[in-house]
């Protein structure tokens, strides 16, 4: 369960309320789009979810953690329960595809045997078994994002947060990535996709939470076709 209780975030340096008194519940196993134009507060919401920032007020509860109260040394352990997928893939350039995925297991203390067993399985599930020895620089954008998804999946997280996962991809590949995330969701993982891409949202009939000027302006189950001014 992910819960925001009356959460606000104020940035002093720009004197702006990025998030204003948001309350939101995401149940286990849900697939949710968080949408809005640039500056709506999507990125801030994502940063609050992964404890990159702390709310000015309110509570953020994820996987039993009070994220707003996490100490710095607790943050890595919290993040291991969340799989992150980013717009710019964020792969380690000096590691192969296999090593990028294996790294996520190594940091949680998996043994070499466990890594050797699980990583090929995950790479197969995203269709990249043949690219295990390639470096990120040798892959296409879509392939890199699939590696990122594999890395996000490998420790069986309860939540995957994808922040503009298709921002750097063409429409065909974008749909493939989205379908991949939908499949992951079918297996019980909560998936949150943050995007401003209307076409992407309309691909799946899932819950859509729309933000505008730091507030939730719409929260629709099975929204599907969106008629709204806040999407591009």
């Amino acid at each position, binding site marked *: 369960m992910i819960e925001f209780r009356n959460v606000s975030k104020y940035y002093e340096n720009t004197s702006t309320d990025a998030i204003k008194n948001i309350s939101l519940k995401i149940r286990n196993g849900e697939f949710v789009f968080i949408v809005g134009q640039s500056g709506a507060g999507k990125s801030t919401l994502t940063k609050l979810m992964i404890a*990159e920032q702390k709310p000015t007020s309110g509570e953020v509860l994820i996987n039993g953690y009070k994220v707003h109260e996490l100490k710095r040394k607790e943050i*890595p352990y919290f*993040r291991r329960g969340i799989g992150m997928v*980013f717009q710019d893939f*964020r792969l380690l350039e000096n590691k192969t595809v296999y090593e990028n995925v294996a790294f*996520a297991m190594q*940091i949680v*203390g998996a*043994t070499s045997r466990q890594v050797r067993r699980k990583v090929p399985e995950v790479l197969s599930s995203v269709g990249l078994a043949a690219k295990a020895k390639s470096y990120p620089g040798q892959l296409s954008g879509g392939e890199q994002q699939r590696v990122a998804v594999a890395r996000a999946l490998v420790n069986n997280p309860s939540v995957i947060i994808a922040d503009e996962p298709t921002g750097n991809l063409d429409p065909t590949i974008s749909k493939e990535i989205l379908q991949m995330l939908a499949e992951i969701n079918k297996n019980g993982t909560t998936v949150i996709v943050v995007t401003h891409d209307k076409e992407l949202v309309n691909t799946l009939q899932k819950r859509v939470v729309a933000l505008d000027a730091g507030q939730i302006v719409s929260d629709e189950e099975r929204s599907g076709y969106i008629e709204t001014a806040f999407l591009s």
Partner: protein
Amino acid sequence: MKLHSFHNFLKDALRNVTLNKILTLATVITLAAGLFLFGFATAITLNVFSITDKLENDFKIAVYIDEKYPTENISRIKDEIAKLPNVSEVAFVPKDQAFEDFKETFGETDILEGIDNGSILRDSYQLTLTDLSLAPQLVPELQKIDGIVKVVTMDDTMNTFLDVTKKLQMGTIIVSLILGLLSVLIITNTINLSIFNRRKQINIMKYVGATDWYIRWPFVIEGAVIGLIAALISFAGVYFLYDAIIGSATSFNNTLGLVDKQQMILPIVLVIFAAGILLGVLGSLISVRKHLKV
């Protein structure tokens, strides 16, 4: 830390060293140059201490024996002196010997007209001290000994010598430390550049859930490896340069009290390798720190 984790850290560290060749080379060269200066300054400091120790031994206290004191009892004075603390050597100088030394120093002068032997002088003992700075404490004890009529300490000369020695020793230590500090600043800057290039890598590791120390370890090992390589290079430089200098000064090595190159190896190895590894590790830790705040 688990063994397989350390194995991964070592692998990452060695890979980083070889992948970022230009930056690794720049860091090694900068560190080696700094260590070379620091190592050579240390060698100079050790020699200054050695030379000043030797010169200190040349300063002696002279105690003159009353000419009326029975000759057969003179050795008793030596026994009394030897019991005193801070006295490392007691040498008897009979008056005839003193006369010959006087003639050698000043030549045949008018002062000696009509004098053929040392009968105008006194027998004396020349004392070598363990610690010259404690000479003033010794004087009253010497004056108490029966038979001793005068104690000469060359106070002014000794004090000047001690003062100069202290300043020289302090000066070389300060120069060594300044060079060491400059090396730290330059090396940290160079390592900073190297790690700045990998800030994105550090950020990604944080997002994936790596702890700060899990991220630091490969950089720490990398810093230690670079420090070790630089230490090897600078040690070779210091050793061969020192060998060349000592080789060209063989005729007065013993006179001056220069440190032999075999005796120099251990302190220089300890200083250079310890400093190299420490600087490499510290530089990495400081540089990584600012990129961990995600």
